[in-house]
Structures are given as structure tokens and as C-alpha cells.
């Protein structure tokens, strides 16, 4: 599991704005944070090798639940500690496959 909680804590932002996945090799995850209400956002970039899971930021930011769930379902990335990961947006099988983008 890729640990990112401590990196996110160091940014000490006010709010998590978005989680973006990009299908490259290795897979890229971008987190955008709003800090001190500045237009320019703080960015955290994570490389996710195939088969690796990522630590959820839900303990720091409650809204990470839906943002991570979206990435999980679109790309098949597992977010450890997110109860919605892979079952929030799909209304059929509650299973994460990540077939739509990959």
C-alpha cells in the first residue's frame, strides 16, 4: 500500500478539492488541495504501480469518500480505508473493475 497520509498532512490544506487519475505507466494520481483560499491550488502527485493500493485520505478529509470512489471505479485503483471505494457510483455490481478507462 502506498502511504500518502503523512504527505497530505504536511500540506495542511483547508480542503481537498479533487482526485484525478491519469492512465499512464505507472498510473498517476493527482490530489488538489485548497489552502488559504488562494486561486493556485496545492498539488500532490502519486505514482501507482500496477496492483498497488493507495491509502485513503478519508480520515483527513470527509469528502475524499466520493472523490476516491470515483477514481476507484473508473480506473480500478483500491483506496484502503474508504468504505465506498468501488461501490458508490456503479448501480449494478458493487465491484471495482476499472474497465471503462483502462
Amino acid at each position: 500500500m502506498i502511504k500518502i497520509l503523512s504527505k497530505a498532512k504536511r500540506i495542511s490544506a483547508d480542503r481537498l478539492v479533487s482526485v484525478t487519475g491519469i492512465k499512464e505507466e505507472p498510473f498517476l494520481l493527482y490530489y488538489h488541495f485548497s489552502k488559504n483560499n488562494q486561486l493556485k491550488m496545492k498539488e500532490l502527485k502519486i505514482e501507482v504501480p500496477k496492483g498497488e493500493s493507495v491509502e485513503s485520505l478519508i480520515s483527513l478529509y470527509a469528502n475524499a469518500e466520493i472523490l476516491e470512489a470515483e477514481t476507484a471505479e473508473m480506473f480500478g485503483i483500491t483506496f484502503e480505508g474508504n468504505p465506498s471505494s468501488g461501490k458508490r457510483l456503479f448501480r449494478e455490481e458493487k465491484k471495482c473493475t476499472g474497465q471503462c478507462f483502462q
Partner: protein
Amino acid sequence: MHRTMFPIGPQHPSLKEPIFLKLYVEGTVIEKAEFDLGYAHRGVEEKMENKEIDTTLHAVQRTCGICSQCHSLAFLNAVEPMGQIRIPKRVALQRMVIAELERIHSHMLWSGVMMHEMGLETLFMYYMREREKILDVFDELTGNRVHHSADLIGTMKMNFSEEDIEMISKTFDSMKDKLEDYRRSVEGHDVIRDRCIGKGKITRADAVKYGLVGPVARASGISYDVRVNAPYLGYQFVKVNPVVRTEGDVHARTLVRLDETFESMRIVEEACSKIPKSKVPKYPVKRIFHGQGAGRVEAPRGENFHFVKIDMAKTKRVKIRTPTVANLVMYPKVLQGADITDAPVIVMSMDPCISCMERVAVIKKGKTEVWSSHELFRGKKHD
């Protein structure tokens, strides 16, 4: 007593757009709420991959069926800095005028639908009649009523003339008295007060914890508005006074939106008076080949975020985080403990825009959950 699951949607008279709300009720009190998505998926993000930037801009403007300009501006805020494109004052102010007119028509649409939810059909008709005037203004300014398509990379397709500005001013003059009258009705109407005050309350602490945005956050005492806190485009030239209330209930969210309509009118009038005589630059201003960036704007529903990656002059990835996604996480919590008869009003007070939010959810072939007509009408029983 059985714990009964009460379905609202995906197609339901009280919903503008398809979302499936599952309300688990004990008597008439909602004990738990869940939502299912995926009924309005169009795959916009995937469609924008490996397309020319201009084509992507065209698609981005059609992400939402109500607010087109806020998506266009968020995309341009991400893309234009990649090419160090400097936006002239006329372009910045013209873009802002369209964005604020869009906020007015979006809030008036919401006000009308909210009144319809409460059974006040006359106010619904009044709001929709006034909104039509703004759509006519869009028609005159851009040639389109809803999807304006006014922006280009670094410039715009038109120059607002003196006649255009006069037309905006005359339209506002014909609306202001009526809108003030409607606002007084909404604030003092006994039925509206009974349906709204104290319902669907969101505390300031919850709004901060769940990262809520837009009028929903501002009705809970959070003075956060991208136009004020991080001014972009024409907001550097025109001061915005954010509308903030502290009650956090449905009534507060209603009044915040109504007051924002008047504030937007003031902003448009001030912006129109500051538009310089120079013309907008000729297109194309500059080509962009590589880069990545993020942009955000204050849409009518709150902060709208776009992440764009460009490679070989084509968009490799566009990620859109609409304000409805940011507020969606609050739905189960705000419905919990409410009476089931208040559910449509509470949901509508969050101003959900499902079609622009659902550019991500996927409808897969394979196993599906099928409800019988009996289950749909009676609700599924859960022990």
C-alpha cells in the same frame, strides 16, 4: 414495525434529473439514506481524450444543461496559463457578464422549481417568466439561449455593443421590482416558512468537515466564494459581496440564492460600465502544444474544478469536479432524521445538477438489480 425502504427516483415528478434515493424509514422518519447514480451518464471525460483543444472546449461547454459558461471558464482558467496567454480587460469583463447572467438564470430556475416542490405553482410560473428574459438576453448577446459558446482560447467570438449593454440594463429594470416582490413573498409566506425553517439543517462544522461549496456552504456561515477569495478574470476589477447566512437550513439556502440574484445584477451593471472601447483579439491568439494545469471558478452551485493535461496540441485528460459532487457526500447525512415528507424540499435545497455531475458513472452490461412493479410502488422491505 418493518423498516421499509422508500424509493424516490430515478424517474420521479419531484426530481429534475435522474438520481435514485433510497430512504430507509421507520414510520415517517428517515433513519438512513443512500443514493445510486448512473442514470444520466454520457461519458464526457472519455470523449474529450485525444481531441483538439477547440473541440474539447466545445464539448466542455455542453457538460451541464443549465450552466455552460462556468465549465468553459474553468477549462480556460486551466488551459490559458499553459500558453502564457494574457486576457485583455474587455474579454475578462465580457466573460464575467455572461457568467453572472448565467448565475441569475440558474438561481431563478432553481427558485421556480423549489416553489413547485412546495406546491406554489404561481411563484413557479412567475420565476420562470422572469428567467425567460435572461435567456432572451443570451440569445441577443451570443446567439444561443443556454449553451452560449461565446469563448475561444484567449478571446471571445463577439464584442458587446452599446445597444447590448443598454438591452441588459432595460431587462434588469423590468425585472428588479418583481423579483424583490417575490423575495418578500418567499421570506414571509407562512407555507414556505413552515416547509423550510429548521429543515435540512447543516451546521457550520459539518459544512467545513465535508468540504461543502457554493450557496449550500454560504447558508451555513462559511464565507467562501472563489470570486472573492481567489478573484479570476473580471472579478479583479469588480468587487463581489458574498451573501452569507448562518441558519444552515432550507430557508437560509433559499434566501442566499435569492439575494445572490440581486448581487449578480449589480455585478453585471458595474462590469458593463467598465468594458473598454477596444475590441477582442483576433482568433487564434496562440497555440498550446504541451502542459497541464488546474482551474476553478465559482459556478452557480459552487466551486467548479477542471484539470487539463495537453500533449501534442491535444487534450490527453480532462477531469471535471462539479459542485454537485462536492455537496453530494452530505445528502445521506442531511436526510437522516428528517420526515419523509420533507425529503423533496431538502434534496432540492441542495440544488443537485445530476447530468453534469454524472459524467463519470458507468452503466455496465451484466448483472442488474431489477425491481418488480410491486416493490417500486410499495417499497422494498428490509428486516
